[in-house]
């Protein structure tokens, strides 16, 4: 895979308000890249800068080894699918989709051929004479996408395109987007605030928090190797336990915590007496028989979730809480509040955050 | 923004400035000549005086025509708002096909050249032997502004949810009570805007009035008559006062509209 676009140390501020701070990332060929962040986090600003609608305050946007900071919008080989589609109300579906080619002075026959082709790809071949106002949200979405695809851009920028759709349609469109991206082999930069959507669609995800990227990586990377406690809590749930190394030897590390002591695998970032936060996902906490490795906790409550249950448990003092997930209801049936249970961490999948 | 776009912007800003100047030039000149004298096109800069304003109280004809105009304006507002509200409500609630036809008729005097509306009424009044007076002028003004009043009130009615009146009935209100306690407070602002606009238009209506006026003249018609002999400074002073009144009315309308954040106008 080769890189096609790079953003280097991009910052953006409006007056004294900082929107983005030192953002850097690269986009690979044929990649589905998602920028994930809450509303107002500045995620739209990133693709607006790539598209050329706003300029970065500092930093470089590099495309094909060339700085394109000052390239006007219409010269950039990217196309945008806008949040509320921005279809031209004075043109029907056919003219909307064919607009980019018309501007490039393509012949009428070529435009017709291409438009019909692309409309077939997005499944709207029978709608070419409709006006945008006569289409449903999902159909307008497809027209907006077709309008971008037909220009054969190097990258398609999608600015929260599914935001306005209801849940059911949203699922359909996610599937549709994923399939179409594979089919047409164009890189997508996709903006969303929805984690599930990001995980489902993306090859890589960049999580935006406090004007900066927390972490960039594949969905699996982000889930299993979060780099910060923010990331650990951002996807799914995670128990964060304050720990201190008590015994550091060549084989394993013994740590103490509010729940007692346990062993974790070797880690070169730790040394004797170092303090850190240990992250372990609730499904990686196992109920076990009492052993010398196990930890004793007291059940606070049990939440029935169908075939499995979730247990919240506390340590002896009752001042620290731990969540345990995916316990077969068969087992949880026999348990009740205030029971003592023994647990063990699947320490291969725990994360270490040094503050 | 490209450099070309910047140039375009400044060019357009300049044009806009020129046009604002052109639109205000006649008005500014009038105000100017109410304070300064000019002889043979030369302005006497030492002649500043606000005497014409104090002398205005002795100009019975001008004052009378002003009072007539205000009378016509007020009666026009009352008639047009009542009829306009009635039709708007009818149009809004009725399912009859007649309502489109009705709307078409109401809009006719507004869309046709004023000269047609004026002479139609003139001929009609002659046929039914109704002598020309301020009241015939009121009729002319009412049917002229009716379309605007109707449209403003209708726009407001269409923003109200049908459940509003239904819930009033549901709670046991009679139709009058529902109107007075529920509908009226909700459309009050649109009635005020429509009324102010109707008054402003009526105050300056000339083309229809010229056909319908009797012996008592309204203010624009008095100006029209005085123009042959040239304007005295008192006339300029009366014009200035009316201009201030009109501007205040338009600003009042605009501020009501922007405060209720409904862009109903046009």
């Amino acid at each position, binding site marked *: 895979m080769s890189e096609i676009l790079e953003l280097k140390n991009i910052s953006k501020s409006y007056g004294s308000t900082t929107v983005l701070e030192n953002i850097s990332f690269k986009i690979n060929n044929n990649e589905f890249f998602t920028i994930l962040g809450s509303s107002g986090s500045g995620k739209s600003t990133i693709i607006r800068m790539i598209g050329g609608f706003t300029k970065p305050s500092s930093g470089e946007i590099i495309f094909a080894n060339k700085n394109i900071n000052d390239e006007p919008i219409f010269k950039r080989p990217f196309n945008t699918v806008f949040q509320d589609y921005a279809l*031209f109300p004075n043109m029907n579906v056919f003219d909307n989709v064919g607009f980019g080619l018309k501007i490039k002075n393509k012949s009428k026959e070529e435009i017709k051929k291409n438009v019909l082709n692309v409309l077939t790809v997005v499944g709207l071949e029978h709608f070419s004479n409709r006006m945008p106002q006569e289409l449903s949200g999902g159909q307008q979405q497809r027209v907006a996408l077709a309008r971008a695809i037909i220009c054969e851009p190097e990258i398609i920028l999608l600015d929260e395109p599914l935001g306005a759709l209801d849940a059911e349609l949203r699922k359909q469109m996610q599937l549709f987007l994923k399939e179409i991206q594979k089919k047409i082999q164009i890189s997508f930069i996709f903006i969303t605030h929805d984690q599930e959507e990001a995980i489902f669609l993306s090859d890589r995800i960049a999580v935006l928090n406090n004007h900066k990227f927390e972490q960039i990586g594949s969905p699996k990377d982000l889930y299993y190797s979060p780099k910060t406690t923010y990331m650990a809590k951002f996807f799914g749930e995670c128990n964060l336990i304050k720990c201190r190394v008590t015994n550091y030897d060549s084989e394993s590390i013994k740590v103490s915590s509010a729940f007692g002591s346990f062993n974790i695998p070797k880690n070169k970032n730790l040394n004797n007496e170092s303090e850190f936060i240990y992250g372990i996902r609730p499904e990686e906490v196992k109920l076990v028989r009492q052993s010398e490795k196990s930890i004793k906790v007291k059940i606070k409550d049990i939440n029935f979730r169908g075939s499995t249950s979730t247990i919240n448990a506390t340590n002896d003092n009752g001042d620290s809480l731990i969540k345990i997930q995916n316990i077969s209801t068969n087992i949880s049936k026999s348990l009740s509040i205030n029971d003592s249970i023994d647990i063990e961490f699947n320490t291969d999948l725990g994360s270490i955050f040094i503050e | 923004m490209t450099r070309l776009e910047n140039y375009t912007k400044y060019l357009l800003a300049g044009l806009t400035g020129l046009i604002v100047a052109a639109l205000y030039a006649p008005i500014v000149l009038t105000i100017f000549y109410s304070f300064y004298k000019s002889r043979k096109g030369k302005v006497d800069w030492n002649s500043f005086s606000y005497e014409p304003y104090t002398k205005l109280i002795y100009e019975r004809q001008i004052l009378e025509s002003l009072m007539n105009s205000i009378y016509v304006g007020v009666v026009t507002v009352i008639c047009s708002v009542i009829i306009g509200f009635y039709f708007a409500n009818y149009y809004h609630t009725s399912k009859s096909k007649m309502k489109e036809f009705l709307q078409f008729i109401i809009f006719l005097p507004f869309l*046709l050249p004023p000269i*047609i509306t004026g002479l139609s009424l003139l001929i009609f009044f002659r046929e039914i032997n109704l002598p020309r007076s301020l009241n015939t002028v009121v009729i002319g003004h009412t049917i002229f502004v009716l379309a605007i009043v109707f449209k403003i009130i209708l726009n407001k009615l269409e923003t109200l949810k049908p459940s509003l009146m239904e819930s009033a009935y549901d709670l046991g209100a009679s139709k009058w009570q529902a109107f007075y306690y529920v509908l009226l407070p909700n459309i009050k602002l649109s009635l005020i805007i429509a009324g102010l606009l109707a008054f402003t238009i009526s105050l300056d209506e000339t083309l229809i009035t010229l056909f319908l006026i009797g012996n008592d003249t309204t203010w624009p018609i008095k100006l029209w008559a005085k123009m042959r002999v040239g304007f005295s400074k008192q006339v300029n002073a009366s014009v200035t006062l009316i201009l201030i009144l009109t501007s205040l009315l338009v600003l009042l309308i605009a501020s009501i509209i922007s405060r209720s954040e409904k862009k109903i106008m046009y």
Partner: protein
Amino acid sequence: MNSVLNYFSTSIWTIVSFILVIFLILIPLFSFLSYSFFTVDGTDIIHEFSLFNFKEFFIDEIYIRTFVRTIFLAIIVMSCCIMLGYPVAFFLARYAGRYKYVILLMLIIPLFMSYIIKIYMMRSILGYSGLINKVLAMMGFIEKPLEFFLWNQNSVIITLVVILLPLIIIPTFTSLDKIPKNIVEASFDLGCKPFQAFRYIIFPISFPGLIVGSIFVFILALGDFVTPQLVGGTSGFTYGKIIYSNFGMAFNWPFGAALASILLFVSVIIILLTNYLTNKLRT
């Protein structure tokens, strides 16, 4: 009791208001149209059907000539208003930022300010010793005052443009202001240069508003009779002025009605035609 006071749906009220509208709008229009088929004898109007007035219109070529000239005049006024008004509306909607409504209001206020005075004052602006000539002389462009501006067709055109210009700015601004920003961005995104974005997107979307304003300006310019009377002199004669004179000194109401009905007929045709063409253009 309730059924009488019932403020809507009551049949009496419905009938009353329908009668009112029919009496005050439709019947006057009808009586005016029928007058155009009557004739006059001295000061008496003869209520008998006759095509005399229309014959007169077509025989004496001054009427047709004046009519055609007035249509041209209205077209020129309309074109000037479009050429001046559209750029202003465009500037307001796109570049004036938070001042746009303030400037719009400034452009609307003169619309409500004394019609007669505006026309009258145009005399002291356009006249031989008027403002324009003075300014031009002061700046050294001319030695003798220009007579190009007053007591002719030009002065009628200029005055009507000054009076009617806001009517085209308002609807055009409204339709331009409604265009979402991202639609313009989308056109850039698809490769439009600024002029192309204007040509293919902004202008077509604002076109209906421009048409509404243009029709208003055209109709009002066509029917105006006060402006030519005050600034037109002898050569600034218009059709509206002829109609009005038949109701004044000439006192030939049936002939005036006939002339007006021709004006009405042509106005309606033009409105319908524009409507039809706009709809056709859009599809």
